[in-house]
């Protein structure tokens, strides 16, 4: 039972050694021209530490919210698709098809609302 976890232990030990060796090597061989940019986790892109009260356009919130909603809702279609054949086999094909259509219809109404309210208008 426990022995089946042995490969994971090996993986941990190996990762530890590898990481330790790389950090040690760079500390030993590497030069140290420390400056502000060098000390940051990412040398390009956004500043990692910043004021949390920074303002940015509400459009991003809208897109993120709409994305989350539809993303989660579409996920619910996966179990529907995988169980479709079983339902057909038990004679409930029409039922499950109409159920799926109803679900998609609800999504479409939501999408119409988003579009007509101009949540996706960028200008």
């Amino acid at each position, binding site marked *: 039972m426990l022995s089946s976890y042995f490969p994971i232990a090996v993986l941990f030990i190996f990762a530890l050694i590898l990481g330790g060796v790389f950090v040690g090597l760079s500390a030993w061989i590497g030069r140290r021209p420390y400056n502000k940019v060098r000390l940051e986790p990412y040398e390009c892109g956004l500043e990692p530490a910043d004021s949390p009260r920074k303002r940015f356009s509400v459009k991003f919130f809208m897109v993120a919210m709409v994305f989350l909603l539809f993303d989660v809702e579409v996920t619910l279609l996966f179990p529907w698709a995988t169980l479709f054949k*079983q*339902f057909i086999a*038990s*004679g*409930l094909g029409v*039922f499950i098809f109409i159920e799926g259509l109803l679900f998609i219809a609800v999504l479409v*109404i939501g999408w*119409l*609302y988003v579009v*007509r*309210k101009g949540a996706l208008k960028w200008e």
Partner: protein
Amino acid sequence: MESLLNTDWLALAYNELPLLLLIVGGTLVLLADLWWPQHILPRWARRKSATVDVHVPDRTPLLLFGMLAALVAFIACWRLWVQHEMPNQMGMLVIDRFSLVGGMMIIGSTIAGLALGWGYLFQHKLPIGEYTVLMLFATAGAWCMISSANLLLAFVGIEILSISAYVLAGMDTKNRLSVESGLKYFLLGAVASAFLLFGIAFFYGATGTLSLVGFTNDGIMQAPTSQFYLILGTAFFLVGIGFKVALAPFHTWTPDVYEGAPIPVTAWFASAVKAAAFLLFARVMLVVLPLMPALGTQLIAGLAIATMFIGNMAALWQDNIKRLLAYSSIAHAGYAALALVTMATIPEAGITSLLWYLMSYSVMTIGAFAVVQLLGRDGEELTSVGALAGLGERHPWLAACLSIFLLSLAGLPPTVGFMAKYYLLANLVAAGHWGLTIAAIISSLISVGYYSYPIVVMYFRPVANQTPHNSMNVGVPIRLVIFFAALAVLVAGIFPDRLMSFIQNSVLL
């Protein structure tokens, strides 16, 4: 899948007609709102007269359609009530007279809430379409709560209701208080929902089922751990539902939310949301209390006493009439919780008095909020009690109506509030809870102090400086709501027997 094959879909659709009507009506309003004309005049006429373009088309027909859908749902509830002698369970939903009466109560509150929005929403430039849609969907959620035989469906119903309610509370985005109330309600409500879900999980751990029908003594009494899980589940459930109905340690959101939300929404919160949460509370306690009668009764009784006294004492210091009515709604949640206490010993009478109490409270609180809304001026809501000074002379009928509602809230005869309290206390005595009875009477006496304060101001305080009399908010629907509420308060207070036998016929356990 076997059960799906054997389901009679037509019968299910027929029995769930109120729910379907609310959902379909809400969806139609949503779609109509999207394609509603943006301008009154056609394009060629608009170019000539640019000034007319400022006026946006009135979307009140959407509100009217929503009211119509709710009215048809109400009638469907009534028809089903007449037909259903016995409870009829279909999957996760159960259709019995208890849920149908609850449905009528909540749909009635929604019709009143929509009627109160007539004129107010247009004047305050609030989105009429969204208001109607959210109210109808929230009512559908409330229907799922009160007619569910399964805790999971009940939770889904609570979330549909609550999320709509958060948006409704924060609907007036130009008003800081409204936005604050929406945010507060959302953050605290989300935590309460988590507690509720946790409680449901423990119920599942204790009983092995989420179906309320399946809660039985057998499984729980045999294993000692499941009794422990049941107590844990009840505790978490009480925290969650206590937040939704505003029981004492979990009531702090109520004054802020009621103050900040637009008045029609506040009136609807105090009636429909509270009633829906209480009916679900009753449905769950109906199966949980027999499993742990002593402890469950003590827990609810403790919450009820704390709620009555905190609500009534805090209301004594309020100068804002919306906050005063908010604390009054907290106190009334305490009284209604007393009806749940009696359910452990006399379940039928307990539920009867709960339904009776919620129904009467809904009517009188909607009436009181409607009068307060009608007194608003120039797009400003009337908030301070002092502004009522001289109302007895200026608007004697309105002052009389507000007095009736306040006296009814205080529980004085000949109003429905007195009858509700009378049945409640009679049941408490019959169940042998003398201490609770005395506590309820004392807190009721305290409440007379703050309910009489606006009445005294209206009739006896001289008007300091006669402010120019601005135009009042006009509107026939709101006057109708006030008229019918006052009529119902008086008629049901003087002749309660018809309504009482109707409610008693609805509770067949």
